[in-house]
């Protein structure tokens, strides 16, 4: 595998990571998930930089990446602290709750209604029971409903 192909492979992975992170950041509303998505974008960029560094045969890319990691650590500390404070203030992790910080004369963004549940009870296909009924661990049941 020659150097260019190697570079391309890494760049493709880096671009994918960045794109997934970007889409995640734009579409998700949970602040922690958005934060993770942002981190993912950083990793995508970092990977590209490392790949370029390898391609050119110098340490510039790696140096920048270490720099990015340092900054990302600080950013993580600040971002998590802010998220914590915002959660304590509102009890929500939903970022749209903070849309009140918009210009005062603009209309509010309203969530679209979810499609209504069908009225009649759903009938799901059932299989014939076979063997004995398994015994549930009560503790596990409790946890399952919560997950």
């Amino acid at each position, binding site marked *: 595998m020659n150097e260019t192909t190697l570079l391309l492979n890494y760049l493709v992975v880096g671009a994918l990571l960045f794109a997934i992170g970007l889409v995640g950041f734009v579409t998700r509303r949970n602040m922690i998930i958005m934060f993770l998505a942002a981190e993912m974008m950083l990793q995508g960029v970092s990977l590209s930089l490392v790949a370029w560094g390898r391609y050119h045969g110098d340490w510039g890319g790696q140096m920048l990446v270490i720099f990015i990691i340092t900054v990302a650590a600080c950013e993580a500390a600040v971002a998590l602290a802010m998220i914590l404070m915002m959660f304590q203030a509102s009890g929500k992790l939903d970022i749209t709750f*903070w*849309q009140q*910080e*918009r210009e005062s*004369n*603009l209309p509010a*963004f309203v969530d679209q209604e979810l499609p209504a549940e069908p009225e009649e009870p759903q009938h799901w296909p059932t299989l014939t029971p076979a063997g004995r009924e398994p015994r549930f661990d009560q503790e596990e049941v409790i946890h399952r409903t919560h997950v």
Partner: protein
Amino acid sequence: MFDFLDVTTRMTLVPALPLAAALVTALLGRSYLREHSHWPTVVGLALSFVVSLSLLFNIRDLAGQAHAGHEPHAAATAHPASFRQAEAASETKPAVGVEIVHQLWNWATIEGAIDRPERALPATDAAALPAALPFKIDISLRSDPLTAIMLSMVTFIATLIAIYAAGYMHGDPGYWRFFSYIALFVFSMTMLVSVSNFLLLYVFWEAVGVCSYLLIGFWFEKPEAAAAGKKAFLVNRVGDFGFALGLFLIWSTYGTLNYHDADGIAGIFGQARLMNTADPYVGGGLGLAICLLLMLGACGKSAQFPLHVWLPDAMEGPTPVSALIHAATMVTAGVYMVARCTPLFLASQMEPFVYGGTSISAPTVVAVIGGFTALLAGLIGLTQTDLKRVLAYSTVSQLGYMFLGAGAATLAGVTSGMFHLFTHAFFKALLFLGAGSVMHAMGHVIDMRYFSGLRKLMPVTHGTFLIGSLALAGIVPFAGFYSKDAILSAVHARSGEEGVGLVYGVLYVTAIVTAGLTAFYTFRAFFMTFYGEERIPHEAGHHAHESPWPMTLPLVVLAVCAAVVGKWCEVDHWFGHLLEQTPSLAYISQKHLPIDLRGPFGQFDIEIAALSSLVALAGIAVAAFLYLGDRREVDLLSKWLRPFYNASLHKFWWDEIYTVLVVWPTKALAAVSYLVDRVIIDGLVDLCGWIPQKLGGTLRSLQTGLVQFYALAMAMALAVLLLTLIWPGT
């Protein structure tokens, strides 16, 4: 006395002590001194007086030596060396008058500030002046007979007034503030007469104005007092503007502002210039302009027509302040300045400005202003019912007398003007403090229509006020008689001259008439206050009794002074002989000046004395006839002379005339300026704010508050940027 102190140290101490008192009172008065706030001021002023007196004796000794010398005008000049060197120098170097100059420090120096004017002279014959002269201002104090007399008079009167004020102002919430201002006022005035430079004279001229503003508006919660303070300040500004222009002219004409010779340049009243036999002072149109601008400044400070309107309103201040302003500080500054600038005025007299066949000389203008003011104020004083206002107009009138004397522009004239200033200080302070005593007893009612017959109630005030009134009216042997007579003689001496003789003749008659008016209104006030049935306004309450000793003691001291000071100075004319040794005045008796200017001071003319005494006695008699009886005649008289009575009562409508001529146009201008400021200036500023606001408003709809929207916008923008960068062909 005080020989252990160097004479220059004492010259510094005279203003320094009041300044220290002012600072101590201002810093400690409110929290620590409180009701003892008068102590620093009284002690500081009293010490200052003792030091000035010792200085006066020094100067008198020097002048005596100068007088006894072979050279008729040889004198000692210490310059700016110490006193002992001055004595040594006096034997070798002839000089004009006696002066001691002491430089404290250099204030400002600008090298090569002005191209050498034609009139700039070198201080010594040997050295020629450079082509460009420096603007150099030294803080120099001077002492000569004129300054020493003014210092002694100012500090003496101010000390007595401070003692009096300790009783009068007792219990006032601003007690400490009052004494701090008083000390500052005296500091400014002592500096005003001590400095040896026109610029510093201007500085302390303004300082006196500020102090008078603070003191006239002392009870600033009272709208009238605040307005009176403002009026005094603004009217003085008009005069000060003229004064400033005069200084500019002096600077550009003589190339220096110093009185004394300094840095090789001859001062304006320095020895080099005074001894110069050529033509050291500028006459003609320029000389007249300088003198008239200086006179405008003097009119403002000394309340002469047309700037006399502030002085009566200044009665809103506490009475000790009125006494201080009217007797010792402030109003005497103008007369002092004209006396100091005598050589300038003389130059205008010897080379008048000729316009269309008539020649105008500055002294004549001064004399006419003085005489007219004396008559005008005397006429207004006839009908005023406010005791303090009667005294205020009498001050304006007496100041007119002083200017009349100074305007005679002979040695006798200027000396008699200063002599009148000196005696007037004593009896006018006495009269004001007496009025204050009455006011104190009457619960701050000062309108003479509400009280009468107080002579049994206030025997000390009555007796001292009588002495003051006799002195003011000019009755033998009280102080006013001698000084007024000296002025009348000086004016009369000039009425025989060709050309201006007629003017001085008319002024002489005016002065005689004014003497009668003075006697009349003084005794009218005296009779209305102290004679007739005993009436006391209800505001007086339980206050209606003789004042406490801090108030009566100064009255008695001043009464003794008012009684004897005229005769005392008359004995062998020591006042005139001393004053003659002031450099500015010694100049008059110089050989190269016309002989008729030198006329001896205090030439007692029995005819003039008899005439003025008769007129004064007639004034008193008329006052007694009208106001000692049941006053029916007064009503009759005021009915017969209705238009005149109204004019006098309304002060000849000067306030109203100024309202129309000055106040209204100024207010209109202010309104226009307000509109321009509001509409144009503020409009521009508002526009500068409005444009970015509207521009920014168009982008406001992007601020949705949705974080994802912002992130998307960034991503899209990035995409657009990338696309442009990698677009093929670019």
